[in-house]
C-alpha cells in the first residue's frame, strides 16, 4: 500500500518534471540567447559564456521607449480584459441560466464573427478610426481587441457558469436573494477559478496583439510592447537584433508569469475552498 503510494508520488514528480522541462526548455533557450553577446549569438553552448547584459541594456535604452511601451501594453490589455470580462459575465449568465429564443444562433454568431481574419478587418477599421479621429488613442486598440477577447470570455464563462449546479442559486433565491444577488454572492465566488482563468487567457491574448496595435498608432509614445519589439533594429539594415528581441521577449513574458503567480491561488482556491465550508 505505502509502496504503491511512494511509487505514485515518484511517478507524479517525473510527470511534473517532464511537463516543466517541455514547457521551459525553449524558454530557457530564449533566456540563454538573450544573455549572450551579439558576437557569440550563434553559439550552441547551454550556458552563456560570458554572461552579458548588453541586450537588456539595449532594450531599456531610452530611445527604444520600451518602458513606456510596457506601460501602454498594461493599460490596453488591462482595460480590454476588464471590459471584456464585465460584458461577458452578463452575456454568459444569460446564456447559462436564461431561456430565450435564438440562443444557439447568438452563441454561434458571437464566436463566428470573431474569427474573421484580422488582416481583413484592419483596413476598414483603420478607415473608420481615421474618420472619427481615434488614431493614436488607447480606445483604437482596446475596441478592436474586444473582437477576440469578448467571444473568448463569453464562451469560457458560459461553460463555467453552466457547470455550477443551479440548485445553489435557487436555494439562495428561496432564501430571499434576488437573482442578481444570488448571482453575485453564490455563482461568482464559486466560478472564481473559471473567471480568473478566463481573465488570464484574455489578458495574454490582448497583451500579445500586434497587427491592430501597429496599424492604429504612429507615435512611439503610445505603442505597445509587441510593436516596440518589432521596431528593434540592428546596427544596419541587414542585422537582425535577435538577442535584444529575445531579451525583450523575456521581459514581456515575465510580467505575465508574475501575474499568474499572484492569481494562481484564486484559480485553485475557488470552488474547493467554497465547497469545503
Amino acid at each position, binding site marked *: 500500500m505505502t509502496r504503491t503510494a511512494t511509487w505514485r508520488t515518484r511517478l507524479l514528480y517525473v510527470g511534473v518534471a517532464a*511537463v*516543466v522541462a517541455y*514547457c521551459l526548455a525553449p524558454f530557457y533557450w530564449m533566456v540563454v540567447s538573450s544573455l549572450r553577446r551579439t558576437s557569440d549569438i550563434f553559439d550552441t553552448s547551454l550556458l552563456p559564456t560570458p554572461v552579458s547584459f548588453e541586450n537588456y541594456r539595449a532594450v531599456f535604452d531610452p530611445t527604444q521607449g520600451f518602458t513606456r511601451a510596457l506601460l501602454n501594453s498594461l493599460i490596453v490589455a488591462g482595460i480590454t480584459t476588464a471590459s471584456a470580462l464585465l460584458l*461577458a459575465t452578463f452575456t454568459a449568465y444569460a446564456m447559462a441560466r436564461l431561456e430565450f429564443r435564438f440562443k444557439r444562433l447568438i452563441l454561434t454568431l458571437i464566436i463566428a464573427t470573431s474569427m474573421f481574419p484580422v488582416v481583413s478587418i484592419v483596413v476598414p477599421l483603420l478607415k473608420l478610426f481615421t474618420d472619427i479621429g481615434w488614431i493614436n488613442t488607447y480606445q483604437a486598440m482596446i475596441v478592436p481587441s474586444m473582437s477576440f477577447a469578448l467571444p473568448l470570455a463569453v464562451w469560457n464563462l458560459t461553460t463555467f457558469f453552466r457547470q455550477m449546479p443551479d440548485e445553489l442559486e435557487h436555494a439562495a433565491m428561496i432564501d430571499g436573494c434576488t*437573482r442578481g444577488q444570488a448571482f453575485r454572492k453564490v455563482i461568482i465566488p464559486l466560478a472564481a477559478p473559471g473567471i480568473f482563468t478566463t481573465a488570464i*487567457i484574455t489578458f495574454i491574448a490582448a497583451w500579445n496583439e500586434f497587427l491592430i496595435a501597429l496599424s492604429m498608432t504612429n507615435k512611439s509614445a503610445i505603442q505597445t510592447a509587441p510593436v516596440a519589439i518589432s521596431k528593434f533594429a540592428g546596427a544596419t539594415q541587414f542585422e537582425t537584433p535577435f538577442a535584444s528581441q529575445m531579451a525583450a521577449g523575456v521581459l514581456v513574458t515575465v510580467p505575465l508569469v508574475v501575474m499568474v503567480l499572484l492569481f494562481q491561488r484564486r*484559480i485553485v482556491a475557488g470552488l474547493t475552498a467554497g465547497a469545503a465550508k
Partner: protein
Amino acid sequence: MTDTTIPPGATVHERGSASLQPSPPVHRRRRTHVRATAGSGRMAALLVSPTILVLTVVVLYPTLMALHESLYGPKGLDPSTGFIRTREPFVGLHNYADIFGVAGQRFWNAFWNTTFFTVVTVGLETVIGVAMALIMHQAFRGRALVRAGILVPWAVPTAISGLLWRWIFNSHGIANAILGRQILWATEGFHAKVAVIVAEVWKTAPFIGLLVLAGLQVIPKEVHEAARIDGAGALRRFWHVTLPLVKPALLVAVLFRCLDALRMFDLPYILVGAQKNSVETLSMLAQNEASNVRFGPASAYAVILFLYVLLIALAFVRLLGTDLVAARDGRKTSRRRLRDVLAPRRTEVAA
C-alpha cells in the same frame, strides 16, 4: 452532455442553508424554475445586447465591408497613363470562382495545409494539454510555481516565439546540434511542416492545459470520491468520470484552438518564411494578396476561410449543444448519464 449537477442528496443538503427543508429536490426545482424563466427573454436581451453591440462595431461592420470588397477585382493599370485606375471593377463572384480555376492550385494547397496543421496541432495539443492538466491537478509541493511555469509558452508573444524557433531550427541551431545531423528546416518539405507543428504545439498546449485544469477544479471532489469508493480504476475513472465532466471546458478550449489554428499566420510566416508552399496557410495567402494590393481576392479568401471556420464552429455548437445552449431537458439527460456511469458500478460493488 455533462453537467456537474450533483447526484441528488450529495452536496446540496450540506451546502444549503438551514432554513431549507428537506423537501424532494425535484419539487423544489420545479418551483424555482417557474420563477427563473419569468420574463427571461427581456432580461436576456438586456444582458446580451452590450456584447452584440460591441461585436457589431468591431467585427460585423468590417466583415460586411470585406464581403463587399470581395466582389471587386484588382484595379487595372491604364496603359496610356501608366497609372492604376482609381476604381475597382465589379467582378461579381469571379474571385470565388477563381479558386476552381487559375488560383486553384495555390488555394487548395493552402487549404490542405491549413486543415492539416489544424488537425495535427489541435490533436497533439489536446493530448498534451489534458495530460498537463491532470498532472497539475494533483497536490504536490511547488504547484504554484509549476502552474505559472507551464503558462510561459502561451505567454510568449507569437512573433517572438516564431523568432525563437527559427533560431532553434537554424541550420546551425540547437535542434540540429541535439539531433546530430543537419536538417534544413526552413526549406520546402515535410520537415518545414514538422517545425511549425512542434513550435505551435509547444506554444498552445498550455492554453488547453489551463482551461481543462480550471474545468477539473470545479468538479466537486465528491464525484471522484464516489467513483473511487465504487471501485473504479484510475483509467476508468478518468475515462468515465473525469473526462465527461471536463468535456465542456475541453471542448470550448479545443474549439478556440481549432478556430485559431485555422487562422494560423505569424508562426509559419516567421519560422519558415512567406510563400513556402509547404507551410502556406489560407491566412498567409489572404495576407499575400492584400499586400499585393489585390483586396478583392484577399477578401474572397478571408470570406472562404470565415465560412470554413463558421462550419467548424457550427459543428462544435452542435456537439456541445446540450452543454451550452440546450433547454433544460438536455440537462436532465446529462444528469441521467452521470448517474448511469456511476450506477452500474454501485451494483457491482453491492454484488
